[in-house]
Structures are given as structure tokens and as C-alpha cells.
């Protein structure tokens, strides 16, 4: 690994440390949620584990003051970078009234936050791609210098909305980035049974846009790909499709048991490429991180997660009367 790789990309030491911090924060929030789930305190978790490099790398390549996100349910790392806090996540996991995504109405992982231009998402997969295209169309109409970013799994890339969205963006040359987080499985269905041709990026050509394949375990490579795509978008060169390869390190969700469809050894093998471990190594090699600093960071984040958990656990539930509000403008 070249020591100055991040500098070549225009990232300061501080920034890469910050990236690492976000990746670690995402991981630790996620791990805590599993514990809470197994302890019967929260009914559901869906994880970012194994995909943090994609999410944080991408978010750092965007403009957090003006770009728009239409993320999917694993994008914890991304929404943290854009401004959501650990507390926000825990409020959502406990479905509390203060949850900024939905006031406790949606499952965790269903991000949406007007403060940070994160468009509210749903569960049916792939619908958000079209919303991102719509945001990009609107931004282009207003001649605003805005990038619209959306992400999704490789299984979801087979839905009709993927095709309609990429085609629409291609025809109108819109400032939108489509990011596939290919984690090899759609619940139990492996990519070979899911995705004819085996490559999501290869589909870009059919829409007249660049299709970029990138190592999703390396946040710097993801950063670079997204930065290039964002620059293209901003100067009117239109959409890009990016496929970042990764691996889902945990079951699909807390309702899943992955032993029925994949071998433990396969997962163990993939753990060797854990993006967190790899990036940690990079930072150690570049001298930006040492045991001491790591320990401090760990402590700091643990405290953040503890505080968030405590706060959320004690926060009030939504009033039952909230069931009836906000169906229409009031």
C-alpha cells in the first residue's frame, strides 16, 4: 500500500481518520443493535456490517451541504457521515417518538432526514432509484450544482425500477450516481442465481453511461470512484453506475439464519477482507493510527453508543394518537 494514497486523492490525514471513525461508529452501533435484539429489547436489526467502506467512502466524496441521498437500508455509515447521530439510530431502533427518520413509524434502517437531504425510504426495494432520478431532474431544471446519490443491493438491481431509472437518467443526462453495494447475497440467493451476466456495472453500457467496478472493501477506492462520478455529474456529463463489491458479514437481518444457505467457512474467509480491519491496517501503516489512539477512539465511540442507547431506551414512545396523524397535510 502506497503510504500517500489518501493524499493523492486530496484527502487530509484528518479526513481519513475521520472516515475510519465513521466506519467504526457504524460498526459499533450495528453490533450494539444485535445485542439489543438478542436481549429482546428491539425487535429488528438490519446491518451495514461489511459495507461500511462503501458507505463512508461514498459519503465523503459527496458534498454534505448540498447533495441529496436516496440510500437503502444498510447505509448506516452513509447517513452518519451526512449528519445523523448515534442517538438518532438508537431512537429509531427503539422506535421512539423522537426518531428523526419516522417518529417510530418505520423499521430501523429506513432512513429519511430532511435536515440532511436524505429522502425517506421504504421497504420495497429499488423504488428509491427513481426518486433519486427525480431529484436529479429537479436539480438540473433549477440549474443547481447538486448531485443526487442512490444505493441498492445487487439483488435489487434486477427489479424493473433499476432499468427504468437508469434509462431515464441516461436519456436526460442527469446528475445522479447509482451505487450498487454488491454483497453477494439477496437474503439466501447468491449472485449467480440472481444476476444474469454476473456484473451490475456491465449493465451501464446499455444506458450509455460509465459502469465502474470498484473494491468495496477499500474506502479510498470507493471515494475515488464516487468523486469522479460526482465531478462528472456536476459538470453536466450525466449519470454513473458504480458497483462496489463487498460481502455481507452477518445474516440478512435479525430474522435470518444464514447457516441454511452459506457455509461458515465462506463467511470466515470473507472476514479476512473486512473493510474495517483493512483500513485500520492502512492507517497504522501510514502512521496515523497506533494502539494508543485506537484505544481512545474505541472508548470514545463506546461511550457515544452507550449514551445513545441509554437515551433512546428511556425516551418516550409515540403517543397512540400519532397513529392517525400525517396522512395528509393538516
Amino acid at each position: 500500500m502506497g503510504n500517500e494514497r489518501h493524499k493523492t486523492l486530496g484527502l487530509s490525514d484528518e479526513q481519513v481518520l475521520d472516515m475510519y471513525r465513521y466506519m467504526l461508529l457504524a460498526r459499533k452501533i450495528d453490533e450494539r443493535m444485535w445485542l439489543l435484539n438478542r436481549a429482546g429489547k428491539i425487535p429488528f436489526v438490519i446491518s451495514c456490517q461489511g459495507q461500511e467502506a462503501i458507505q463512508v467512502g461514498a459519503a465523503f466524496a459527496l458534498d454534505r451541504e448540498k447533495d441529496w441521498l436516496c440510500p437503502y437500508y444498510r447505509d448506516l455509515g452513509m447517513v452518519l457521515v451526512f449528519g445523523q447521530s448515534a442517538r438518532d439510530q438508537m431512537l429509531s431502533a427503539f422506535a421512539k417518538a423522537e426518531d428523526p427518520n419516522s417518529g417510530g413509524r418505520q423499521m430501523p434502517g429506513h432512513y429519511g432526514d430532511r435536515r440532511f437531504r436524505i429522502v425517506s425510504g421504504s421497504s420495497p426495494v429499488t423504488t428509491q432509484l427513481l426518486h433519486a432520478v427525480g431529484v436529479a431532474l429537479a436539480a438540473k431544471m433549477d440549474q443547481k450544482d447538486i448531485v443526487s446519490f442512490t444505493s441498492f443491493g445487487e439483488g435489487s438491481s434486477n427489479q424493473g425500477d433499476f432499468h427504468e431509472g437508469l434509462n431515464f437518467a441516461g436519456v436526460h443526462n442527469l446528475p445522479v450516481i447509482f451505487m450498487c453495494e454488491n454483497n453477494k447475497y439477496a437474503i439466501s440467493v447468491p449472485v449467480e442465481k440472481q444476476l444474469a451476466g454476473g456484473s451490475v456495472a456491465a449493465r451501464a453500457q446499455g444506458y450509455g453511461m460509465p459502469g465502474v467496478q470498484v473494491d468495496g472493501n477499500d474506502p479510498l477506492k470507493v471515494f475515488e470512484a464516487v468523486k469522479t462520478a460526482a465531478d462528472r455529474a456536476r459538470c453536466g456529463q450525466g449519470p454513473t453506475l458504480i458497483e462496489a463489491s463487498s460481502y455481507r458479514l452477518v445474516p440478512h437481518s435479525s430474522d435470518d439464519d444464514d447457516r441454511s444457505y452459506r457455509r461458515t467457512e465462506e463467511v470466515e474467509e470473507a472476514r479476512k477482507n473486512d473493510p474495517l480491519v483493512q483500513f485500520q491496517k492502512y492507517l497504522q501503516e501510514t502512521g496515523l493510527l497506533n494502539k494508543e489512539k485506537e484505544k481512545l477512539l474505541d472508548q470514545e465511540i463506546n461511550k457515544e453508543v452507550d449514551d445513545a442507547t441509554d437515551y433512546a431506551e428511556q425516551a418516550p414512545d409515540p403517543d397512540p394518537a400519532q397513529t392517525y396523524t400525517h396522512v395528509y397535510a393538516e
Partner: protein
Amino acid sequence: MAVISYIDAVTQALREEMQRDERVFVLGEDVGVRGGVFRATDGLIDTFGPERVLDTPLTESAIAGVSIGASVYGKRPVAEMQFADFILPAVNQIISEAAKMRYRSNNAWNCPLVIRAPYGGGVHGALYHSQSVEKIFTGVPGLKIVMPSTPYDVKGLLKSSIRDEDPVLFFEHKRCYRLIKGEVPEEDYTVPIGKAEVKREGTDVTVISYGLTLHFAQKAAEELEKEGISVHILDLRTLVPLDKEAILEAVAKTGKGLIIHEDNVTGGFGGEISAVIAEEAFFELDAPVRRLCGPDVPSMPYSPSLEKEFMLNPEKVTNAIRDLAEF
């Protein structure tokens, strides 16, 4: 006041709203240079340019989904589905996304968009250019559903729909497009969403309807007046939110209710209206509420003999009203 056609009322409303508010834009298949296959968007591209009058690819889910994205951003898209029958590929975007955006985000996001679609039969459109599709959406909270029957209401309600903060499905009966003409004021006006209108006062039978069949009821009422039967007619205009008060009041006038729509009977919206009456005006009724609707077959066939059998017409309506009056 000028007398214009039902479709001209659509075009005028679009034009005036685009002039009033630059966030408004239209999109759909063939809405640009072609001006729409029915010509509802005729001339708009000349005035507003291709940036605000978008010819989209042949992809209804994208038309709906892109409109949703643009609307959360702050635009006011007015999407056209070329035929209401072809709204079906967009159902997921409409029901899962547009209808639930405000609720799921706890009021943080909303979708101020309009989807216009020509529906209904009697135009040799066969199975897939004749359907009434309102029942797919009338049970979906979060959507508003508007189905006007006159040029005045088309224009006033389309303006209200475009100015509304929530997603509105605006269904236009395609047989009315050139058949129905009416007076429309020159100056800006709106008709409120959610208000039914009494079209005719009567004492013997109350007819509740919307769209093309409303006109059949009016014809029938004129006919029946000669026979001494007095018909009270309520035009729903909006199906969701439903003007229950107006319905109950109208039924109370005569004690007899006949609901008429072109959509097939079973599972159609008439059942909802009937249920509301049965629940809330039971003791006002002198006879069971009846429904006169399309038959329970998948859609309207092409052959004129079969299409005629499927469609309602003033004669069938007259008979049904007379029948109920005589009950």
C-alpha cells in the same frame, strides 16, 4: 363565460398553473411535440419548452417515481398516464411511495404531485383502453382521488390538485373529452377537493354518481320528469376524501339511493358509498340502496355489440331509476 370542452379545460388548467407557478411541469408519454395522444397538453411545449414539458420514455413506473423524486425536491410535477389502464405498472410507486411518503416520514417529506389519466369506455377502446381503475386506489389512504364530470369542475379541480400538498390522482373520462362542453369563467378559480355537488334537486330518488354516468343520470332525470318522477342528483367529483355529509344529506332528501358508476360492481367504489349510507342513514331509507354499474367481467370488449352491452347509457339509467322510484 366561454363554453369549452372537457379536454380544453384540462389544457387551460395546465397552462394557467404553469404560468402561475414555475415549479409546475408536465411529463408523460407523447405529451411534448405530439401534445398528448388526446391533445390534452397541446401547445404547452411551444410556450414552456421541453424542460417543462417532458416526453418521457415508455415507462410508467419511472413517470411516477421520477415525479415523486421531483416533488420531494420541491417541484410540482403533473404526470400523464397515457391511458388509465397503463397506470398499473406504476402501482408500486404510487401506493408504496407517493401515498406513504408523508406518513412514513412523520410529516418531514411530502409528495405534491398530480397524476392525470384518461379512463373509461365507449370509445371502441377494447379491454385495455376502456377501464375504470379508481377502485385500485380508493382504499389507499394518503392518496386523493378526483373524478370530475364537467369542464368547470375539471378546470377548478385540476388547479386545486396542482396546488394541493399531497398526491392526487386525477381521472378524466375520455368519452367526455369532446362530448361534454360547458361554461368556464375567464378568471382564475378553483373548486375544492372533497366537495360533492348537488346537480339537481328532487324528491323521489337520489342518484349518486361521477364522470360520464353523471351525464346519463341528468338525461334520465329530464326524461323521468315527464313521467312525474323527481330525481335528486349528487355529483361526487372527489372520491377521496369522500364527502359523506353531502351523501347522507342527498339520500335523506328522497329516502332512496341509487349509486351509478361505469366500473364493475363487485369491489367497486359503489360498495363503499352504499356501506356509508347503510351505516349512517339506515333509518332515512325507504328502500334498499342499489348500485347500477358495469358487469363483473374483466373489461369492456371491442366488438360494438359487446361494448354496448357493457356500457351504461341513459336508457339503462332511466330504467334503473324508474324501478327504484316504483319500489
